[in-house]
C-alpha cells in the first residue's frame, strides 16, 4: 500500500512565518521594505520576478522531497490554478498540479479540451479538486446564482459531460444544466487520461455526486473519530452503488524536532494576533456544511492558545492564523508521523499537507516527517482488523 502526499501551492498568498499574518512572500501585500521579492530590486526597479516564481520555487522544493504534486486553491483573491499550472508545467518534471475549481464557471466541453491539452503539456500530471460548496454572497461575487443543492446537480452534470466528451466523438447529452449534440474530443485529445477527480463537500447532495464521479473524497481534518465515521460512511455509500471511493485529508502541520518547539511556534502565532483579527476570523455566513462544522469546533472566546487544543497533537486555531480549516496537527516529527499513520489506519488513502512558510516547510515535512511514516501504520491496521 502506498499513500499519495500532496503539498499546497499558496496561490492565495504566503506568510513568511506562522507568527505573522502579513503576506510578505511575493507581491500579495503592497511591496514594502519587508517583502522585497518578487517585484522590486534594491534600487526600487521592477526586477521581473513575479508571484509565479515563488510558487515555482515551492513546487520544485515539494517535487524534490517526494511530494507527488500540489493543490492550487481557488478563492476570489487567488491567482487562478488553470493559469498557474501550465505556466509551471515545463519547469517541473513529476509534480502533479491539482487544480481547484468550481465546475459551474466553465463550459464542460471547453474544460475537457483545456484539461486534455494540459495533460499533453505535462505528461498526464493534471488532477482536479472539484469544489461545489462555498455559497452565500461569495457565489454571487463569482456570478453564480444557483442554490446549494442545484450546484451539486450541476456538478454531477458537468462531470457527466466532461467524461462523456472525453470518450470521443459522437457524444450527446440532454441535461438540466448542459446539453451537447454530437460532440466529443478529437482522437488527438481523447487519448489522454481523464484527470483524477478529488471531490469536496459534506452535505448529502455532495456525497451523492461524489459517489458517482469522484476518485477521492476530500475532507478537512476533523477530530479523528468523527473523520473515520465520515470516511466509513462515504466508502459504504459508494460501495452500495458499485463503486470504490478513496478518502483524503487536507491538513496543516507544525512539525518540529520536539513537541515543545512545535507548541512554542503555535503559541507565538496565537499571541501575535490582534483581538480584532481573532474576532474577524470567526467566520461569516456560509451555506458550506464543511465550514459550519469547522466553526463549531472552536471556542469563540479563547484567550490562550492551549484552550484550542482539542486532542493530543490537534490544534483548532489554524483558521485564526490564516484562512481555511481550523484543525491541524502540531508535534514532534515522530508525533506528526504517528498522527498521520493513525489517519491512514482509519481509512485515509491520500493527504494534502501544508505548512507555513510553504517553501521551507515543504523541505522540513518532506525530509523529516514523510520518511517516518508507516512505522505505526502496520500495527494500527492490524488492530483495526
Amino acid at each position, binding site marked *: 500500500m502506498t499513500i499519495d502526499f500532496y503539498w499546497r501551492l499558496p496561490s492565495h498568498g504566503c506568510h513568511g512565518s506562522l507568527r505573522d499574518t502579513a503576506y510578505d512572500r511575493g*507581491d500579495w501585500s503592497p511591496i514594502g521594505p519587508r517583502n522585497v521579492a518578487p517585484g522590486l530590486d534594491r534600487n526600487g526597479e*521592477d526586477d521581473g520576478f513575479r*508571484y509565479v516564481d515563488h510558487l515555482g520555487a515551492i513546487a520544485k522544493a515539494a517535487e524534490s522531497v517526494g511530494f507527488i504534486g500540489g493543490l492550487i486553491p481557488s478563492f476570489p483573491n487567488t*491567482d487562478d490554478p488553470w493559469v498557474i499550472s501550465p*505556466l509551471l*508545467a515545463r519547469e517541473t518534471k513529476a509534480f502533479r498540479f491539482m487544480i481547484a475549481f468550481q465546475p459551474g464557471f466553465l463550459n464542460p466541453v471547453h474544460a475537457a479540451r483545456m484539461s486534455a491539452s494540459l495533460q499533453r503539456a505535462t505528461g498526464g500530471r493534471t488532477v482536479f479538486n472539484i469544489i461545489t460548496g462555498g455559497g452565500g454572497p461569495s457565489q454571487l461575487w463569482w*456570478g453564480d446564482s444557483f442554490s446549494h443543492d442545484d450546484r451539486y446537480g450541476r456538478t454531477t452534470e458537468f462531470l457527466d*459531460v466532461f467524461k462523456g466528451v472525453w470518450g470521443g466523438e459522437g457524444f450527446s447529452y440532454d441535461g438540466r444544466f448542459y446539453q*451537447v449534440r*454530437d460532440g466529443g474530443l478529437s482522437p488527438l485529445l481523447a487519448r489522454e487520461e481523464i484527470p483524477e477527480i478529488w471531490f469536496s463537500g459534506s452535505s448529502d447532495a455532495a456525497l451523492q455526486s461524489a459517489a458517482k464521479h469522484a476518485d477521492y473524497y476530500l475532507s478537512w481534518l476533523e477530530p479523528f473519530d468523527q473523520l473515520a465515521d465520515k470516511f466509513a460512511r462515504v466508502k459504504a455509500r459508494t460501495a452500495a452503488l458499485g463503486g470504490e471511493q478513496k478518502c483524503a485529508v487536507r491538513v496543516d502541520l507544525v512539525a518540529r524536532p520536539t513537541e515543545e518547539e512545535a507548541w512554542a511556534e503555535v503559541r507565538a502565532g496565537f499571541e501575535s494576533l490582534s483581538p480584532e483579527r481573532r474576532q474577524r476570523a470567526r467566520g461569516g455566513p456560509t451555506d458550506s456544511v464543511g465550514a459550519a462544522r469547522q466553526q463549531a469546533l472552536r471556542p469563540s472566546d479563547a484567550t490562550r492558545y492551549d484552550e484550542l487544543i482539542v486532542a493530543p497533537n490537534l490544534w483548532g486555531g489554524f483558521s485564526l492564523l490564516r484562512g481555511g480549516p481550523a484543525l491541524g496537527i502540531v508535534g514532534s516529527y515522530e508525533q506528526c508521523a504517528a498522527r498521520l499513520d493513525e489517519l491512514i489506519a482509519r481509512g485515509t488513502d491520500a493527504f494534502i499537507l501544508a505548512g507555513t512558510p510553504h517553501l521551507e516547510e515543504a523541505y522540513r515535512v518532506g525530509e523529516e516527517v514523510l520518511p517516518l511514516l508507516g512505522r505505526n501504520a502496520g500495527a494500527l491496521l492490524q488492530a483495526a482488523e
Partner: protein
Amino acid sequence: MTIQTYWQLDVAEDAGRSEPGARQSGLFRDVRPATLNRYDYYAQVAQAAAQTAFDGLFLPHRPQSDDSGIVAAAIAREVSRLKLIPEFPASAGSAVYAAKQAVSFQRQTQERLGWAITNAGESAARAREGDHVPEDELHARVDEFLTVARGVHAERPFDFAGKHFEVQGGGFQEPLNRVAFPKVFLQGESEEALALSARVADVHLFAAAPLSKLRVFVETLDALALRAGRAIEFGLIQPVLARDDAVDARRDAERAGFPDAAIVGTYADVAERLADLARAGFRHFVLAAPSSLEEAYRIGQHVLPRFRALTERVTAAA
C-alpha cells in the same frame, strides 16, 4: 502608434510534428521520451518569433487541437518578452472567471496577454461545444461578457444583471486589480461584428483581403467607433510567403496551396505590400505561414527589418 507584428502559432498546423504518436520507427536508435512532445515544438516556434524580433504570438482557437490558452501559458515563461494572444470561444464559461484567469496571466507575465474572443461557427458546431445561445444573441453575449469582465476588474463592488451573465457585489481586490486588463481583439466582417467592435474592441482583426475591400471595412468601422466615442485599432491576419526570388516564392506558394489573399513574393515585395497596408491604417499584423518554425525565422530575419524601415516613415507621417 508603433506597428505590432505577431507570428501565428496555429496548433492545428504541422500537426504531426513533434507528436510522439507520429514517430516512425526505423533503423536509428530513438531515445526521445514521450515527454519530449508537441509543447517543445510550440516553445521552439515561440523562441523563433522572439529571436527574430516579432512583438508577439497569435494563437487561433482550434477546437480539435490543443487549447490555445493552455499552450500560451505553457510557453509564456520561455519567451520573456513576447505578447501572447490566445483566441478562445465566447462559450468558454463565466465572464468573471475568464477575467480572473486573464488577470492571473497578466500578473505572472508582466501584462503580456491579449484577449481574442471568437464566436465559434454555425449552430451545429456550437451545439457540439455545448453552446446553444441563439444566433442573433451571439454578439450581445460577447458585449455582456466584456462588460462584466472589464467591470469586475475596474470596479468594486460591481453589479450586473444581463441576459447571459449576472454578478452581485463583484469586483477584484488586491493584488489582482493591480494589473491592466488585456487588450481585446475581435474579428468579423459582418455589419453586426463591426458594430460590436465599435462598442467594445480595442483591436479589430480582419481576414486578409484585397486592399480596396479592406479600405471600406476600415472606413466603416472607424465611423462606427467615432459615433460610439471610441477609437479602434486595426489589424490583419495575413498569410505570407517570402523567398529570395519571386519564382521560388510562387513555386512554394503553389506547392503549399496558399490562399488567394496571401502575399507572395521576394522579401522586398512582401515588405512593400505590408507597408501599403500600414499606410492604409493597419497597425497590428498577424503574419502566418506553414511550417511555422522555419517561416518565422525567414520572415523575421528578412521581411520584418525591411518592413520596419518602410514603416518608420509611415508612422512618423501619421
